[in-house]
């Protein structure tokens, strides 16, 4: 069990590093030792999914990183609008989540990834205090930070990433 969660965390790191580099031309470094980000000074996107397991992925990025992230994705020098910046983060989490789930569950599994959204601050607190994540990845970006938090539904204290086995 612990192994699987450790594996999921490693997979989140690998997928996030790859997508950030290829899609947003951002290099990231693992910051395993630090505490969670200050979500009050971050923009947080959320995407829920259903399939072999259900849950959601949160992606928090330091607010000051958002303009660069959007400009990199769009390949422009000019200032990006707040809407473009939110859209850029939503597409990033969409691509990370879409790549992450088959990496964890295998390509035989079918997942539906819902439309990502930006969370209002009140909701962030509610989600974070509601239950423990299955895995958290903490990254340093050039001028900020990024946390990726994976939550799985219907999982009590023994959060399981194992394929469902039929009742004996």
């Amino acid at each position, binding site marked *: 069990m612990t192994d699987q969660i450790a594996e999921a965390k490693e997979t989140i790191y690998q997928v996030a590093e*790859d*997508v950030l580099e*290829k*899609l947003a031309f951002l290099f990231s470094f693992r910051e395993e030792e630090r505490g969670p980000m200050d979500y009050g000074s971050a923009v947080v996107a959320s995407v829920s999914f259903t399939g072999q397991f259900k849950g959601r992925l949160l992606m928090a990025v330091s607010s000051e990183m958002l303009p660069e992230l*959007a400009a990199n*994705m*769009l*390949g422009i020098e000019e200032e990006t609008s707040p809407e*473009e910046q939110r*859209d*850029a983060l*939503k*597409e990033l989490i*969409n*691509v990370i*989540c*879409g*790549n992450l*789930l*088959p*990496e964890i569950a295998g*390509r*035989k*599994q*079918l*997942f*539906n*990834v*819902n*439309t990502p959204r930006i969370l209002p601050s009140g909701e962030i607190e509610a989600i974070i205090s509601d239950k423990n994540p299955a895995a958290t990845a903490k990254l340093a970006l050039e001028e900020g930070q990024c946390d990726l938090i994976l939550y799985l539904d219907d999982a009590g204290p023994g959060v399981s990433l194992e394929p469902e086995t039929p009742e004996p």
Partner: protein
Amino acid sequence: MAINILIVDDSAVMRAMILKSLRMTGLDIGETYQAGNGQEGLEALNDNWVDMVIVDINMPVMNGEEMIGQMRENPATADIPIVVISTEGSEARLERLREKGAAFIHKPFTPETIRDTMRTMLHLEEND
């Protein structure tokens, strides 16, 4: 001859990234149209003649798989080449898309992948 293209993706930033990559391919890109979901995509096809459709899978209102299904059922759009650009990793869903004759590009992509896929789909030679 210039290639007219419809890009369907719920992310405006992703549509811009795809468009930028298309412009880097060296292919003669004509008119480009954009839509934010499958429904809008079908409406755009009603109003415009295109040579190729580039479509995402995960979209609200109508997803890409449903849009492709409806395109294939309509004689006016049944033969338009389709390229799916998506994060999709499920073998079953990719097989269903292949059966409908769609090419597949995995997100995140490089402009080279888009160029090579376009050439293959449009039966273009290196020096076209």
